[in-house]
């Protein structure tokens, strides 16, 4: 079946019919090119989304107090809810296996000064667990630990940008920096994959800030990470439970949407996953349309070619070509052309993606590559397209009656 003669015939006919080979090949190559570029771009968008969200732990839950909107349990509406240290202790006691890290959080703006350099930054006063929750990477020194917390030390972990602004080339570790006039010792410098903005932040022990700001036990927000073995449903169920318990604890009506906000990353992530899923489905749909258009196009060209070659096919049949041999000739030719030109389109597209991929650095788009399986799928689709595109005209060609083909009229 794959003897040398038929390949010789095919190459011969390709070589001597350059225009039609080009037309057929171009339509397939172009189709595959668009297909791979499209899939690569969708991949890039998907990667972009993931990068943006991966910056923080993806299993984070934030619990924030609000203002009640309903009167409940003897309290009037419009009551401001305030979390305190014992809220954290309470969650730790009540939800043992459900969470992994937990931390309180206060955010305060501050003017920081070192020698003659000053800058305005946000200080996040937190517990040691917060490092994991926000995926903070320590470049130098250390993060806040339990000792800092117990002794309410005036220590700070500053972002890379803060260190650059204030300390220039100096090593900040161990130096004292003034926050609103109070001296804090720098114990660490951190970086954050996510964005430059995060690196313009400062961490301090929450107990220190509670003491500075009125010697209270108040906290503005509770951040925690849920058990990583939880799937989406379990995670959502946990955050609902958390919300219910916290509402009960603070005597907020279960129907009150405003008293407490529980914000679960899983939910947002779920939305994004379904969005990129939709994007994927959409692109597959477009790709199918492109392929159908391509197959119809190639089929048309092949039918045109057969018309053009009717006489030749008639001659071949008069000389003793069997129908199957004619089918084979037309079919192999179309598979060969679709396969080769598709491969060229594939090479071009992957080449372009590989070339521009590393140069694109925006938040919404990253690493627009295609996977090996995409390449394999595209190739399989190609061969099928080749067969489909060649089949109808091949059968048509085989049915050409020699006398009709050879008639000079």
């Amino acid at each position, binding site marked *: 079946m794959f003897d040398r003669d038929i390949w010789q015939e095919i190459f011969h006919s390709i070589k*001597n019919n350059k225009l039609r080979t080009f037309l057929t090949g171009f339509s397939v190559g172009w189709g595959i090119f668009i297909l791979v570029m499209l899939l690569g771009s969708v991949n890039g968008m998907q990667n972009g989304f993931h990068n943006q969200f991966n910056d923080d732990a993806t299993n984070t839950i934030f619990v924030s107090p609000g203002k009640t909107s309903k009167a409940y349990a003897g309290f009037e509406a419009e009551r401001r809810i305030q979390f305190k240290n014992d809220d954290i202790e309470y969650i730790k006691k009540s939800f043992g296996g459900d969470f992994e890290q937990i931390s309180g959080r206060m955010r305060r703006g501050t003017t920081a000064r070192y020698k003659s350099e000053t800058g305005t930054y946000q200080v996040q006063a937190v517990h040691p667990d917060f490092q994991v929750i926000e995926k903070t990477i320590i470049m130098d020194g250390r993060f806040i630990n339990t000792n800092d917390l117990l002794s309410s030390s005036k220590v700070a972990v500053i972002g890379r940008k803060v260190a650059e602004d204030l300390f220039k080339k100096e090593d900040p570790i161990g130096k004292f920096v003034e926050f609103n006039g109070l001296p804090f010792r720098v114990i660490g410098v951190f970086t954050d994959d996510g964005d430059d903005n995060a690196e313009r932040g400062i961490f301090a022990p929450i107990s220190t800030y509670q003491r500075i700001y009125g010697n209270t036990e108040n906290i503005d927000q509770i951040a925690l990470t849920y058990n990583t073995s939880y799937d989406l449903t379990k995670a959502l169920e946990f955050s609902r439970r958390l919300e219910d318990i916290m509402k009960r604890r603070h005597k907020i009506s279960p129907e009150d949407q405003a008293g407490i906000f529980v914000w679960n990353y899983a939910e947002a992530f779920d939305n994004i996953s379904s969005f990129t899923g939709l994007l994927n489905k959409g692109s597959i749909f477009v790709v199918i349309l492109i392929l159908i258009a391509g197959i119809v196009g190639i089929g048309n060209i092949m039918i045109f070619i057969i018309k053009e070659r009717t006489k030749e096919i008639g*001659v071949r049949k008069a*000389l*003793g070509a069997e129908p199957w*041999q004619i089918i084979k000739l037309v079919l192999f030719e179309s598979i060969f052309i679709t396969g080769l030109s598709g491969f060229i389109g594939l090479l071009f597209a992957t080449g372009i993606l590989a070339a521009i991929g590393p140069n694109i650095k925006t938040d919404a788009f990253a690493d627009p590559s295609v996977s090996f399986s995409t390449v394999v799928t595209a190739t399989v689709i190609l061969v099928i397209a080749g067969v489909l595109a060649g089949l109808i005209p091949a059968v048509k060609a085989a049915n050409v009656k020699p006398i009709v083909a050879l008639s000079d009229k």
Partner: protein
Amino acid sequence: MIEIKNLHKSYKMGSNSLHVLKGINFNVEEGELVAIMGSSGSGKSTLLNILGMLDNSDSGEYNLDGVPIKDLNETKAARYRNKFLGFVFQSFNLINYKSAAENVALPLYYQKVGRKERQEKALKYLEQVGLRDWASHLPSELSGGQKQRVAIARALAAEPKVLLADEPTGALDSTTSYEVMDLIQKINDAGNTILVVTHEPDIADMCKRIVHLKDGVIVEDKKIEQVRADQYV
């Protein structure tokens, strides 16, 4: 070699039907050179196409070299054509992107002859028609007479039992026509059975027997004294 009994053929044209062959009876022996004559539209090509298994008759018997030819499917017809018959057409019907030698080798390809042998045979038959030096030329580089000689070489290459030529000189001027007839006579001298369709009396006179078709029947069938073509070339 060829036996035909009461052959009928009509073409359906919408609701009408055109009765082209109305009971043809004739035999051809091995080694004959037969001219089939008749005016245009008398059914000469139709008869030749049926003999060549390119078309089917409506009724009647046809035996070729003792093999009854009927109810052939496409594949079988292709095999018989390849084994028994060689065709020469008025318009040459060479494949335009193949060289002279490749055209001649094509029927051998369908006989599943090996590449080397195909090449050798193609050159041998091109030699026989005097075009050995033109083996690598494309049809577009050949004159009409040369094209027809390549076509004859191609018909011979398969070593058929019968050579069927439909107006082989119809597209040629008289000098080249005689050259082609000279070649056909020489091939016949070597023992090949040949049927030539023509409506030109001088070409018919160069055969050994003339069968005259008129209104779908044979009106005359006579052996003649062959006029040799080489005296004109």
